[in-house]
């Protein structure tokens, strides 16, 4: 009986891993900045939210994504609500793409992801600069965008394997 409940807990944890990872990444911002690589940074929550909203939407609740966005704003120091708006817009793009796609492929996902992050980043940075008068380093933004785009394929493959292992029974 005890073994059965242990298995259930582990199973549940594995199923909730995407949302746990999202919360860990917004609280921790693991982007390897401490390596002080001059031209390297990426936005892991963007990749995570887009992939899981596209492939297994029930593994990330919209309400929890909204909260993760608020936490990200607090940690980064952005006006509260902006990351939530961006994360939810990514969910919207992913849901739209899921609805219109008949034959999904990684390549299509990848290029739609590029379009999505271009739109949401433009939206976010325009509001930060025009409404909230933030000064931003545009080179850093472009570098961040490029690496986020490039690393999508790597992360998507890892998530794909994870998905097959954990969600295959359902």
């Amino acid at each position, binding site marked *: 009986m005890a073994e059965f409940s242990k298995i259930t807990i582990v199973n549940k944890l594995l199923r909730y891993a995407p949302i746990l990872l999202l919360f*860990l990444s917004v*609280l*921790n*911002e*693991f*982007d390897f*900045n*401490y*390596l*002080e690589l*001059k031209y390297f*940074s990426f936005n892991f929550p963007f990749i995570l939210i887009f992939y899981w909203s596209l492939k297994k*939407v*029930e593994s990330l*609740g*919209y*309400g929890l*994504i*909204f909260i993760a*966005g*608020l*936490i990200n704003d*607090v*940690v*980064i*120091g*952005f*006006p*509260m*609500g*902006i990351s*939530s*708006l961006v994360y*939810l*817009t990514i*969910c*919207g*793009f992913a*849901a*739209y793409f*899921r*609805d*219109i796609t008949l034959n999904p492929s990684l390549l299509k996902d990848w290029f739609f992801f590029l379009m999505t992050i271009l739109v949401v980043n433009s939206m976010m940075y325009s*509001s930060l600069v025009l*409404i*909230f008068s*933030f*000064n*931003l*380093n545009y080179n*850093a*933004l472009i*570098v*961040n965008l490029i690496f986020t785009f490039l690393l999508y394929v790597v992360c998507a493959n890892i998530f794909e394997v994870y998905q097959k292992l954990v969600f295959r029974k359902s």
Partner: protein
Amino acid sequence: MDAGSRDDFIIAIRSAFLKKGNKQRFSLIFLIILSLIFLALGRINFKPIDDVKIAIREIVYRSSFFVSIPENYLKKTYQTVQSHFVIYNDYFEIKAEIKKLKAQRNVDQFIVEENKRLKKIIDDYVAESDEVVAKIIIDKNSPFLRSLIVNKGSKNKIKLGMAVLDNNNLIGKVIEVNYLTSRILLLSDLNSKIPVIVEPGNFQSILSGTGKNDGILQYLKEDYLIEENSIIYTSGAGGLFKTGIPIGKIEINELNKEKKVDFFSNFSQLQFVKIKSFNKDMN
């Protein structure tokens, strides 16, 4: 776009944004509107939203500190390993530097006392408040915002605008105060602007961050001859900081002759900082 494909597009958009998905408690559009409300109320400094913000900040900063422990451990290990490679060369350099500094110290002590007396005469002497030593609990080093979170807030008499020092070097100022935590905007942030003087020459300027690990001098006439290794101090203009807090030194790029400010403190290695304010001495 013909009518059929326009209808498909509208149906897909409606399904994506308006329909509550499987196992979802809220629809996307509801939460998007909620985010917009948060943003709008935050922009006009709506009091209840500010209170919510402070409460969330307190919880998030503490949680983030604990969640970051494994990554901070990795970061520390990486930096320790890196520093071991340069320790031998550093030893000889530091030994020579100490010898020079010891000789200079006695002269400096006299100058400091003389400076205090003279400033009192011209009524420019400022008194420092008790300094508060704070521990850094979040150091995200984001490429967009260069800020730190420390574990002291209004409970410890921290106020907006207070100077933040690492040893005796200025590293930033307090821009957000919560009950138990505060946010410090580092000098390297693009939004940081500090009035400074460049010595030798006594050139007045504004130091602005670049969003990287250095700063630039703004509003400086081109014909000013600023040498490499000139020291940047706070000018005291604006009354926020006292005059003469060391910040960094000038580095000139040999290729394009661009002048950058190399900060004395390494912002990525900070663990504890001193927070203090400077007021006019009334005695």
